[in-house]
């Protein structure tokens, strides 16, 4: 054979059943492959999910008030969004999609800056270098390659940075996902691919997207260890992402994680999911809710009582109120910005167009 010695395929394959630590009813399910996060981490996961869900509801409300042009809700996916983010270290980077506003907020970006895109004021409202979060990515799967390049560069520079990229089940069908998984594996880049398989790509259900036993089964085809995890189990998501980050840091390369979850809302507020799926299915998934599941577990463990819950709720409410208030302030946009960042320095043509636009605006105001 022309190839160097190869690792046995079984090393790369995911488990048949998704890994989990907390059952839907809140009871612990010990898994030899995973260890339960520490109590303080579990509490932070819970807090994060409560805040995240409140943020999500608030954002949806803002679309109704016309303060946001559009919003893709992550309701139901809180365990993936928060579980993954809390497993990152400060120096790590996040490469999110349009669906992951909740994760971006959890990473510490001001929610008003996060919503700049969906409010329609600018394409990305935050500085990616402040919280190490790439702009939310709309062209599906394209961010997977950015994450691989970023991670590889870190390794080249001798920096201990891991890149976590989020993508959906639909995005796994794009050629870019394939190329990213392959480059990452060949380069042993410190990347974690987290596929949030929420069952749908807009209206298209998973069975029209793939015929594979699981999306995590793609990993072996790249020589990449792969994990299938219950995406509604924040403790489990946190544990597997943390493991993957540790592998990456240790120079062992990338990991592919598929988190099985569900999109409770429509694709965005502009979509109407009743056109393509049954209410039954949604109901079914509501019984697997990530937030109440962890709540039950924490309560049973005596880590959560009414008082702590009230504190958590109050804080989430406060954050939402602040967001609402600040989103209700009309922004002043400067059309001159249109020309400033196309190139490092505006070209002669852009300067002229800027001048023409400025003249128009003055005229209009006169």
């Amino acid at each position: 054979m022309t190839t160097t010695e190869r690792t046995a395929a079984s090393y790369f394959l995911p488990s048949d059943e998704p890994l989990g630590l907390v059952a839907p009813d809140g009871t612990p399910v010990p898994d030899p492959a995973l260890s339960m996060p520490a109590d303080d981490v579990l509490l932070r996961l819970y807090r994060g999910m409560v805040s995240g869900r409140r943020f999500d509801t608030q954002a949806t409300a803002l679309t109704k008030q016309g303060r946001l042009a559009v919003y893709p809700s992550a309701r139901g996916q809180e365990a993936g969004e928060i579980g993954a983010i809390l497993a990152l270290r400060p120096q790590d980077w996040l490469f999110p999609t349009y669906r992951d506003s909740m994760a971006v907020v959890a990473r510490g970006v001001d929610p008003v800056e996060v919503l700049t895109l969906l409010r329609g004021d600018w394409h990305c409202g935050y500085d990616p270098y402040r919280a190490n979060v790439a702009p939310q990515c709309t062209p599906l799967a394209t961010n997977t390659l950015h994450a691989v390049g970023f991670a590889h560069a870190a390794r080249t520079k001798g920096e201990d940075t891991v890149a976590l990229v989020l993508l959906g089940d639909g995005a796994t069908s794009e050629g870019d996902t394939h190329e990213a998984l392959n480059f990452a594996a060949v380069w042993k880049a410190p990347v974690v691919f987290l596929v949030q398989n929420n069952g749908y790509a807009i209206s298209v259900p998973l069975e029209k997207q793939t015929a594979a036993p699981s999306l995590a089964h793609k990993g072996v085809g790249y020589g990449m260890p792969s994990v299938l995890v219950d995406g509604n189990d924040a403790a489990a998501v946190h544990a597997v992402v943390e493991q993957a980050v540790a592998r990456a840091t240790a120079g062992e390369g990338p990991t592919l994680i598929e988190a099985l979850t569900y999109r409770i809302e429509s694709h965005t507020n502009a979509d109407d999911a009743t056109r393509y799926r049954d209410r039954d299915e949604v109901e079914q998934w509501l019984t697997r809710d990530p937030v109440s599941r962890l709540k039950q577990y924490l309560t049973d463990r005596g880590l959560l009582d009414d008082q702590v819950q009230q504190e958590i709720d109050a804080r989430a409410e406060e954050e939402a109120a602040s967001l609402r208030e600040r989103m209700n302030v009309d922004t002043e946009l400067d059309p001159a910005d249109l020309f400033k960042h196309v190139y490092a320095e505006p070209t002669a043509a852009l300067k002229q167009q800027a001048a023409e636009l400025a003249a128009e605006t003055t005229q209009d105001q006169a």
Partner: protein
Amino acid sequence: MTATLDTDTTLPLAGALNRALADALEEDERVLIFGEDVGTLGGVFRVTDGLAARFGDARVFDTPLAESGIVGTAIGMAMNGLRPVVEMQFDAFAYPAFEQITSHLAKLRNRTKGNVELPVVIRVPYGGGIGGVEHHCDSSEVYYTHTAGLRVVTPATPDDAYALLRDAIDSPDPVIFLEPKRRYWEKGTVDLQRRSPGLDKAVVRREGSDVTLISYGGALGTTLEAAEAAEEDGYHAEVIDLRSLAPFDLETVSASVRRTGRAVVVHEASRFCGYGAEVAAQLSESCFHYLEAPVLRVGGLDIPYPAPNLEQHHLPSVDRILDAIERLQWDDAAPLDGEK
């Protein structure tokens, strides 16, 4: 079933497209429709609404999420005698299919000296004006018009939406069918008998003698408004709807410009290397001695498509068109000798 017996009906542009697809599916069993969300959902703009239910999911169906996959398999299907009509969900999401479009769809007929024919239609909702976020508003026509072997058409009215789409599906050539999404909801009378001028003809939408305004797709409506407004300023503007961008109907356009002596091209795409450049270049050459002023272009700014709350600064407006008309040297230039 009796759909094609009607003659006229009033429909929004999106509805006219839906009707064209339905009638094509009805009349030709080789026609099939696929893409992202075009089946059960009926498309994010509902252009394929009801078609999967009516024609079954062997003929109207959702694919995995991969645009190169959609176009690449459409090519294979066309090689095997079918007539696929595929949808790219938004303009910028057609870019993953660029290689399949450019290196195969456009070239296979030529590559095989006509042995392989690819009657594929790629529907692309394009352009801005609906408050869409980035990647949902590109005017990507030039990427296609510069590629020999493709036909590129774009309707501006419901009637044309119906006629052009039917003609596109019937065409033996691959057609990039650009749908101006900001006009999807505008209603108009649709002639179901398709007394259309054909796939490659421009039409005069408004007659005038002083200046020729040339536009297409989403910008045509704005151009017509501008023509009305110009009338108040005393300019009788002729308005031409190109409909077909590739090929370009120079004959119709230059006949008009030779009469009026002045021309403005209007489109949403960035001006630099935009479609207007070709129109201006051809007119400057073919009407050189008739032009009283340079052919002017009103286009989008030379910037990435802006965020929704700034898009009005990018898009051609009535005012900008009027301003261009004003700049057509009405006073200073003595008429050129009418030689040639």
